[in-house]
């Protein structure tokens, strides 16, 4: 096989999920009425934002060799805090101050801090106490959602302050600002993971923690940072969710965890740790929401939605799995 041909195949395999995305979009566009229009693509873009941002953090934790099942609840908490502070109806307290541009900034910082604290706690139990990340973050998944119920009394907040809400209304080139925010996040973190020592260490720690420890890398700090980053990004996702919902409900975000995991895996991140690239994850998220949107448009009986979604996701992951075999076969 010629080196050039090999290189082409390598490239295609490395970017298989993007290829899949294109194929899937083409198929849906051709077969589902109303699918092929700019607005739908903009919707997919926008709907991917929340899980997308969450998935970045999740992917980082997973590449570092752990797991974070709490991102969904963390996002919900951050959304609820944002809603309670800055929405004016329901349980919203309608805090407001001027200048108006400070409102989004302050609310964002609070949301990120909320996420960061949960991430910190997860990190504490996993790294300092030495518990398994699975069980720690599973517990967080439960108690953080419980906290949402506790602080909101199970009620919702709505009418987010317009100065914050505006972020959910604006668009650039016809694509909602919210969507651009996730693109930006992906760009930044893809760079961090690929080009900086932090990213390098995340990968190395995920490959062999002992080796990095012996090499004098503060592997605990790296792991801890990964949890905090995941928390902060979940906080951001929650803030964005609150903006989109113009408030928050006690069960906001329920079910997103599954989507985030699916996206991460479809995107080529290995749950064993040490392997994965963020651009693939973004493609995974987009693929997933292309499917969701297709289901929303397809006119299926409601009873079957869940089965079909589960099946399609499995199929998407399956394709990614075949990558390995293809590589063996083709190269």
């Amino acid at each position, binding site marked *: 096989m010629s080196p050039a041909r090999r290189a082409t195949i390598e490239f295609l395999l490395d970017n298989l999920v993007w290829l899949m995305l294109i194929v899937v979009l083409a198929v849906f566009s051709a077969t589902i009425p109303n699918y092929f229009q700019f607005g739908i693509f903009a919707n997919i873009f926008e709907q991917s934002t929340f899980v997308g941002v969450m998935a970045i953090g999740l992917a980082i934790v997973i590449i570092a060799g752990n797991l974070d099942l709490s991102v969904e609840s963390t996002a919900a908490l951050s959304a609820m805090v944002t809603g309670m502070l800055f929405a004016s109806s329901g349980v919203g307290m309608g805090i407001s101050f001027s200048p108006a541009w400070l409102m989004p900034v302050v609310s964002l910082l609070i949301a990120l801090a909320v996420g960061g604290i949960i991430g910190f706690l997860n990190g504490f139990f996993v790294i300092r106490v030495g518990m398994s990340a699975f069980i720690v973050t599973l517990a967080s998944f439960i108690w953080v959602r419980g906290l949402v119920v506790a602080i909101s009394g199970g009620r919702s907040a709505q009418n987010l302050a317009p100065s914050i809400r505006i972020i959910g209304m604006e668009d650039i080139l016809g694509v909602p600002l919210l969507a651009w925010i996730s693109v930006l996040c992906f760009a930044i973190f893809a760079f961090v993971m690929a080009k900086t020592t932090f990213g390098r260490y995340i990968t190395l720690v995920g490959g062999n923690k002992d080796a990095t420890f012996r090499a004098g890398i503060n592997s605990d700090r790296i792991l801890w940072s990964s949890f905090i980053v995941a928390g902060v990004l979940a906080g951001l996702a929650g803030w964005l969710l609150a903006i*989109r919902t113009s408030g928050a409900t006690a069960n906001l975000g329920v079910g997103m965890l599954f989507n985030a995991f699916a996206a991460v895996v479809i995107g080529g991140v290995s749950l064993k740790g040490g392997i994965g690239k963020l651009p693939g994850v973004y493609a995974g998220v987009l693929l997933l929401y292309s499917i969701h949107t297709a289901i929303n448009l397809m006119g299926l009986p409601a009873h079957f*939605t869940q089965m079909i979604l589960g099946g399609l996701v499995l199929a998407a992951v399956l394709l990614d799995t075949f990558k390995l075999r293809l590589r063996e076969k083709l190269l």
Partner: protein
Amino acid sequence: QDKGKIYYMVPTLLDEFQTESVSAIESFMGQVGYEVETLNADNKTDVQQGQMDTAILTNPKAIILAAVDFNALAPYIDKAREAGVPVMIFDRQITSTESDFTSVAGTVEIGHVAAGEIQRLLEEKNGEVKGKVLQVLGDPGDPYTLDIQKGFEELMADYPDVEIITKPAMQWEASNAGSIVADQLLANPDIDLIFVHAAHLAVAAVASLESAGKQPGDVMLVSSNGAPVGLDLIRQGWEQVEVEQPLYAQAAALAMFADKVANGEELEPGMYEVLGLESELTIEDWGPDLKIPGAAITPENVDEARFWGNLKAPEGPIEPVK
């Protein structure tokens, strides 16, 4: 006066109806002399089954059950009653076994009320009952939403010119509802009205409408359960109708009949006034059943205190039924 302990089995606290029901029941029962302890099943059937088991052993005066699932708790109702603990059914009707008292608005009936209102709204807008309605269910696995759907579609069946598109928001999650609305607005730009099965779903629906550049009233919105957020949306003009579940009356009825139920007395069928609502007690296969009419909340009456969504629980002491 301390007549003893009553358990309230609340199915979840993830929605406002349930949350408010806890305070209403605790307060009304307190007024008639019972102490209420609330156990949250967090939407888990088996958890609620365990709670029933445990509660029975403490020998309470009665158990108020709002079942996670309409029917899965039937064996536990039997078990409690065999152990001498009367069971009152709240909000979620159980017809598969006998209980001591039932206080519900009726889910199918909510669908009926919604259908009536939606027919009116469509007629007002299009001159006759025709158009496109997007119905957003809570979760395809939840009989509560399925019953509303059933009641709604039963009455809408008479109007073939109304096209109903039905989508489930999975697990009653608001942003899922938002996505459905966003996508459907593109696929079916001519949607006249959106009917969501809970007020908190309406919040996300409105946000999507707003993002799509709609003004209040461009697309009509109807929701059920009468939560505070729903009433707010009516005030803002986004929502036209909220189908009220008479939470306070449902809860008050429990208190009114508590003594009789606890003492194992016979209940008289007939009409009763519960917080000003004419309600009918009938004796059904599943025991005494009090149906309290739900109401349509519109911009005209939205501020009335009787709607639980205004969160003004009636002060006056509850009078036990003699």
